[in-house]
């Protein structure tokens, strides 16, 4: 178990360094000059040079890379040239918002996707199956940004049921910082009205984010359920008189959960990536929005930092999935 953890950790570190190198190189081949942006429109050449020197941009690319990797090993993600703050600090500030969104979306995806997948497997090729199939594939096919805007128009602008964007109303002060997740923090603080309004704010972006994920969870769960339901041990369970409900909801589901879990892990990373779009539409102050605004101002350290962070969460999620695998599947426990 210890060697397992150690190997995981080693892969994690290796992958992180790989991602850092990859994104650093990609973002730095561009001709863009962020220093000039920061210096302001009228800045003279020597003013731009001041900033370049301050952020080490006057060095050659390989030098910058070595410096960056050196900092990275020490846990320093560099400094954003636009906000002049350490990237790590900013990423940590924005990460809870993103995680909260992703958790809620993932929750929706699992809570709706798994049972629906189960039902359409049981009623395979029936009308319910056809409907969920089109519904779920619509989920993958719908452009998230477009869908988000439609929902905004419908529920916020037209019906005025839900707020247009943001995490909290303007005058509501965020609850005391514990986890950074407003839903959790407000409950800890015992402030139910804040909980309620932050729930209202998160619901639309979470739906948009969860829709494609829900779809693939549903598809995988359905496919696996169909296969498991045809497997020998299910036939045996039927032959031994176990009730259909128990077979489907316990025996088959547990087996079908393995690939579904893998999909959830995969989709977790995908969701983190999609926050780039959803957070833009809903002005959700998370790392996705931070990445987009940084990318648009050629401020690349935050882009690399966010990519790293997403990679990190993704790997962590997949490690958790691996552990869940071992927990569910006794055959893997010895490894």
């Amino acid at each position: 178990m210890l060697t397992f953890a150690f190997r995981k950790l080693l892969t994690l570190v290796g992958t992180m360094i790989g991602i850092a190198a990859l994104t650093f190189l990609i973002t730095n081949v561009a001709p863009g000059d962020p220093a000039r942006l920061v210096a302001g429109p009228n800045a003279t050449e020597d003013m731009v040079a001041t900033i370049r020197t301050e952020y080490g941009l006057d060095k050659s690319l390989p030098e910058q890379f070595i410096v960056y990797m050196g900092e990275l090993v020490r846990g320093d993600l560099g400094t954003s040239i636009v906000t002049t703050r350490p990237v790590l600090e900013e990423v940590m500030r924005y990460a809870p918002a993103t995680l909260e969104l992703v958790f809620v979306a993932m929750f929706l995806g699992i809570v709706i996707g798994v049972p629906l997948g189960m039902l359409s497997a049981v009623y395979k090729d029936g009308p319910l199956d056809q409907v969920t199939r089109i519904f779920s594939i619509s989920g993958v096919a719908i452009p998230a940004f477009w869908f988000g805007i439609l929902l905004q128009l419908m529920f916020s602008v037209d019906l005025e049921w839900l707020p247009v964007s943001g995490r909290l109303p303007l005058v509501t002060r965020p609850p005391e910082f514990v986890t950074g997740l407003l839903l959790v923090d407000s409950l800890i603080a015992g402030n139910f009205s804040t909980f309620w309004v932050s729930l209202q704010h998160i619901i639309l972006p979470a739906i948009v984010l969860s829709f494609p994920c829900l779809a693939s969870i549903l598809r995988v769960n359905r496919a696996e359920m169909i296969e498991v339901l045809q497997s020998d041990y299910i036939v045996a369970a039927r032959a031994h008189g176990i009730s259909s409900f128990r077979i489907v909801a316990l025996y088959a589901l547990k087996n079908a959960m393995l690939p579904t879990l893998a999909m959830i892990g995969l989709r977790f990373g995908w969701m983190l990536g999609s926050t780039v779009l959803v957070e833009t539409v809903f002005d959700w102050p998370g790392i996705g929005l931070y990445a987009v605004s940084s990318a648009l101002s050629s401020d690349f350290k935050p882009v690399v930092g966010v990519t790293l962070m997403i990679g990190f969460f993704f790997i962590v999620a997949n490690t958790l999935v691996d552990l869940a695998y071992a927990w569910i599947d006794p055959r893997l426990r010895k490894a």
Partner: protein
Amino acid sequence: MTAHPMTPIDTSVEDTRPLTFRERHASQIRQWRLYAHMFRKSFSSMLGLSLVVLFLLLAAIGPLIVPYPEAASGAINMSAKLQPPSSTYWFGTDEMGADIFSRVIIGARTSLWIGVVITGIAAIVGITLGIIAGYRGGWVRAVIMRVTELFLAVPGLALALAIVAALGPGITNCVLALAIVWWPGYVRLVEAKTLSIKEELFIESARSIGAKTPWILWHHILPNCMSPIIVKMSMDMGMAILSAASLGFIGLGAQPPSPEWGSMISVARTYMPDWWWYSLFPGAAIFLTVLGFNLLGDGLRDILDPRSRDR
């Protein structure tokens, strides 16, 4: 264990006359008829096929049938800007007075191009690397798979965003960036498939008659990988179009006046909700196209992937 439904061929009749085409290809004909039969039975598959056919048709002849073909090349008519849908302008007009119907239809060609190029590059690179990794093993596989995992650990859209932001906006850069992040999916698919096929007896059998590695890869492994690849490519056509549109939406996509759907929505979103038609139609076009390719892929999976084939 059910009885094998396929009755072995009757060996008693031995005919000396040359066989007709139909007889020689009886097996394939039956197979295709079976596919067609299974495909037709599923409403969603047929819906997908219809959408894809419609899309391909529009991509092929779109510019010939639209009322204002010049709308796609930047003709402006400021006096007719932001007109709601009418008999003159079926989908209304945009902020420069261009006919949205014409632009959406002609945009199909752009989208098709985007989908084909991204999927094509990704598939060629991914299949090649995947098959090599799966068959060769050893350090070759280790290197390929490490790089692949690296790419897979970063969400594609975020990485593509970084690449396009670095290369500068534009449809070519967009396609390039997406192709760069797209191939690892194929590597993983093909590598896994190759690993399992490699263990099949017929591979050993081919080796025992002295087949060289390229022959085995080309004649034995590749054809057996094709089903999931075809399914994935079909789905990816849609997803690539969607991703390109997403980049277009962020403002990194096609340059004006090119009628790319994502870029159209990117502009149109600022005209919401009062000029709703502007974003509705390109959005619907993306949605239906991607839906079509995905439903088609899903239908193909049902008939091509033996795991779900139970009749």
